């Protein structure tokens, strides 16, 4: 085989890989086994509904400790959600490669894998960024809670 047909084969493979990966991936687009990480901190329920200046723990002597615990709980669930997102990105990439790059070797395999790995890296970065945002939000909720403890410093 001369170089020209080889190059044509390589470009054809490159062009078709994203389509093949999308069509055949067992974890398809629009599917997601993870909890929406952006909803973790907002799901934390600490405020007393009838008093905007109080939290459920306000009257307790260990209010500040409980607020801190609530924040840590929030962060743990955010980390779980992020880990799930990253695992999902890895799984999608692994199966996309298994389905789309089967039988390929050498440069053809590398070319086939490249866009899959690019997408995987991007999806993992989304999870990392979302986690950073959510950890900050959990921390803010915990701090707000502690500030509403009855024995909190004015």
């Amino acid at each position, binding site marked *: 085989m001369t170089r020209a047909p080889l190059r044509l084969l390589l470009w054809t493979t490159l062009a078709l890989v994203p389509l093949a990966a999308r069509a055949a991936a067992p974890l398809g687009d629009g599917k997601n*086994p993870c*909890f929406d990480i952006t909803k973790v901190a907002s*799901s934390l329920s600490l405020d007393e509904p009838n008093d905007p200046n109080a939290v459920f723990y306000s009257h307790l002597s260990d209010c500040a400790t409980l607020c801190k615990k609530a924040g840590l709980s929030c962060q743990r669930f955010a980390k779980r959600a992020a880990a799930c997102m990253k695992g999902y990105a890895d799984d999608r990439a692994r199966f996309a490669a298994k389905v789309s790059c089967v039988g390929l070797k050498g440069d053809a395999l590398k070319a086939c894998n490249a866009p899959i790995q690019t997408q995987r890296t991007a999806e993992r970065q989304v999870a990392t960024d979302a986690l950073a945002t959510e950890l900050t939000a959990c921390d803010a909720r915990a701090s707000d809670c502690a500030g509403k403890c009855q024995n909190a410093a004015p």
Partner: protein
Amino acid sequence: MRRPELARAALAGTLALASALLPAAGSRAGIGSLYTQMVCREMTDIPGEFDFETSFLGLKDCQKLCLDAALVCVRDVNDAASCQLAFASDWIASDSRLDCDGLSGSLLADCRAGWASDKQTWQSIIKSRRNSGRAGCGSLFANCNSHCSGT
């Protein structure tokens, strides 16, 4: 008894309608809830997030890939259950602390025992639903496998 029966009933039913019942449990009981909704996926919904029954048709390792994908499904079900068990633990620790506050002696012991019982019930429901989720993954595997073999 300070810990309202409604809270117990709501907790027992939480896994059936987790996100909908959690806020109701707290408000009806007149105590706080750590979260307004479940912050974990529901185990029985996980198999529905997989779509691999015909993904491996024509591939040499079709059946192996079916098994591999099903194991990923099971792992995600297990992760969701682990998340829910942690959620139940945190939720009950917070609400029991609020509910049993100010009690002492046998009243405190009763209050704590009641919440511990609720926690056990909740954990049992989570584990049962984990089994249902796993079974769902098993069905996906069976369908995938049958497509591979053309049956």
